């Protein structure tokens, strides 16, 4: 066991203060993300209210099976990430690494499925821009729906990618004993971020895929 145990950063008085500051800092950051995605949800809601029919029709082009599977995948990854934090606090390092690796694989699976959906939409001509499949005023509204589809899922995907990267770095930090049961804050903070990415999807999925009926 390495001697790199509880490292106290010099601006803090004790480890407890450091831990509380780290957790509070991450929650404050998540609050900013709530406002970020929230404003996007607002723009979507307002625009949808102006074109309810077109948006409902457009939504039917989305692959509900892919969306449902992806939601389940993210839930599972949150489950494994939560278990990983618990495992670290119990000192079960091998288990932590295993669980985090599963989270990373699941996150990658989500992105792969999403990528497949994007490809399909591209081929069908539903990517916003000059080559959009539907033209005319009705087409504009459908294009607006897909604009929001790509922005909402795209920004979410970018955040997931970042979470994947951070988790991969964490696996390395645990393997090299820089993150340990007594210095678990980096994992706890990034786990919060992972769960938040899941939370965003919990709203993105029904708003895009489900509302408007099938």
């Amino acid at each position, binding site marked *: 066991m390495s001697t790199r145990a509880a490292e106290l950063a010099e601006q803090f008085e004790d480890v407890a203060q450091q831990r*509380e500051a780290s*957790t*509070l800092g991450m*929650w*404050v950051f*998540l*609050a900013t993300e*709530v*406002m970020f995605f*929230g*404003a996007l949800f*607002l723009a979507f*809601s*307002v625009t949808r*209210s102006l074109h309810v029919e077109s948006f409902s029709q457009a939504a039917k082009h989305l692959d*509900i099976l892919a969306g*449902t599977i992806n*939601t*389940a995948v993210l*839930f*599972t990854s*949150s*489950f494994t*990430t*939560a*278990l990983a*934090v*618990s495992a670290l*606090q*119990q000192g079960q390092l091998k288990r932590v690494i295993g669980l985090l690796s599963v989270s990373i694989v699941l996150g990658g699976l989500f992105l792969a499925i999403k990528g497949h959906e994007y490809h399909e939409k591209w081929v069908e001509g539903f990517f916003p821009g000059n080559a959009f499949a539907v033209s005319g005023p009705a087409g504009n509204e459908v294009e607006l729906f897909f604009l929001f589809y790509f922005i909402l899922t795209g920004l979410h995907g970018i955040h997931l990618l970042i979470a994947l990267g951070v988790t991969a770095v964490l696996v390395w930090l645990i393997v090299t004993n820089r993150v340990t049961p007594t210095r678990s804050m980096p994992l706890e903070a990034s*786990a*919060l971020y992972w*769960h*938040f990415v*899941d*939370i965003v999807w*919990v*709203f993105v999925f*029904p*708003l895009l*895929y*489900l*509302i*408007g*009926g*099938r």
Partner: protein
Amino acid sequence: MGAKTERSFIGVYLWLCLLLAGTVGAAFLHLGVINIIIALLIAGIQITLIAFYFMQLRRSNHLNWIVAIASLLWLSIMFALVIGDYATRSWTG
């Protein structure tokens, strides 16, 4: 932390999947505006479960609760006043 917490994680995970089935199933019923309410309600329950259990908010310092609640509150303010404008555009006088 320990076995007890991890058991609660399993429970939360199962509930999340169950609620997912529920919200997808409800989408195939044509209930008009109720569809939106059901979807948002289920989403609300799901994020509460994730926040309280997976994110350990339940055991956390109450300051973190305030931060989480405040962010939702501010979001509501933004929604309320903007939608308030759109909803009252047709009111005259």
